[in-house]
């Protein structure tokens, strides 16, 4: 495959070498790397690192490459292209999400939006004990302990992990939709009632 970067000047673009170092770091890293981490590891400017990431994003993108650079979980990481999804599925499972139950997803939503939260708090919101759902999410690495409520003797609290953001393809927790924006249920009910009132008034 031809290596055709968009803006190659005559003298080797000084960011090229940095881009090679950045791609090397990304291919061995076990989690997404932030611009800060990349700048520290490459001993270079954050601005130049961003420029290098721009070059890499151009090169490692869907449709052009099997390796795709993505911005996720507060950093940058490589993943497989969607084109290769079937082949990946034949070779690896995505064990993290396999067989996630409805109870586990509700628990995950509570931890993501309200975390850090304890098991009793989760149980209070869901109305049923959360022990097995919490245990399965911990085992999958989607949530992790985050201290105890009110210090020693309190219940263990949980928060979501960077793996959660990765699995769900979120740039950060801030990318979760606002709860108010979810579900148009109250709006739909209001509209139906208004329609009844109008029909009666006419």
């Amino acid at each position: 495959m031809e290596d055709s970067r968009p803006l190659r000047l005559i003298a080797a673009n000084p960011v090229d070498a940095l881009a090679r170092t950045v791609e090397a770091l990304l291919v061995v890293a076990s989690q997404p790397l932030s611009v800060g981490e990349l700048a520290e590891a490459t001993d270079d400017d954050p601005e130049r690192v961003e420029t290098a990431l721009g070059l890499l994003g151009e090169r490692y993108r869907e449709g052009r490459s099997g390796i795709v650079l993505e911005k996720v979980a507060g950093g940058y990481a490589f993943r497989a292209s969607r084109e290769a999804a079937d082949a990946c599925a034949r070779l690896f499972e995505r064990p993290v999400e396999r067989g996630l139950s409805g109870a586990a997803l509700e628990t995950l939503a509570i931890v993501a939006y309200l975390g850090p939260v304890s098991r009793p708090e989760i149980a209070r919101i869901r109305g049923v004990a959360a022990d097995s759902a919490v245990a399965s999410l911990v085992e999958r690495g989607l949530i992790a302990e985050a201290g105890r409520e009110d210090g020693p003797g309190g219940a263990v609290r949980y928060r979501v992990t960077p793996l959660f953001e990765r699995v769900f393809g979120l740039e950060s927790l801030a990318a979760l939709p606002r709860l108010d924006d979810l579900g148009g249920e109250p709006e739909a009910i209001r509209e139906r009632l208004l329609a009844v009132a109008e029909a009666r008034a006419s």
Partner: protein
Amino acid sequence: MASAVRDLELDLDAFEGPFDLLLTLLLKEQLQPAEVDVAGIVVAFVEHLAGRDELDLDACGEFLVLVAALLELKARYLFPDEEAELGELEPEEAAEELARRLAEYRRMKEAAAWLRERLDHERGRHFRLGPAPLAPTFARQLAPQEPRQLAAALAGLAVEPPKVSLSHMALRFPPVSQFVERFRAVLRRRRVFDFDGEVVQLSRVEQAVAFLALLELRKAGEVALSQAAPFAPIRVSRTENERILQWKTAARSA
């Protein structure tokens, strides 16, 4: 006329069919109360009523009783252990707390549905879990630590959990019969009374139960109800004075 409620056709997310069948499935535990969209049922009933000329009080009464029971069933299902805790609150506070928790639960269900959709969408995104096969390895190093941290951690695990008070009362609605008796007594003294005036001092939960009592009496033919317009004060009288205004007339005058 009662069949107007039971035959009510519902088209909800979790259920499609007559109200009667929904209740049967719930009683047989083939449908979880948590899955039932009560607001959807209420709206369907309101739409059904609006399509008729006459206000069918029997149907309204039966519907209210059934929906109240359904709501209670759903609340109990969602918060099985909370009865005692809510019982420590005043009935109005308990009702508000329950409403708050139902709303929070609904939002979390919506969030879970969003996560599920997201997961389905992201299924084609594969990434490596764990270290790369040829990644360099370096041992993690820990600075010198104080042994008393260990003693403190273990002592922390030996702290007794806060005692949960077991002295709370269960959340109870006052019995309907209490209000049935009370209204009978009022009607023995007076031919007519104003329902709103009679219950104005009561809490919201008690007012609701009082209203159910009123419908019971109406169903038994012991009282007559009249109302000048929708949401106007309800006048309660001995049966001989019954006068039911039609919704249509009321709407025109409004």
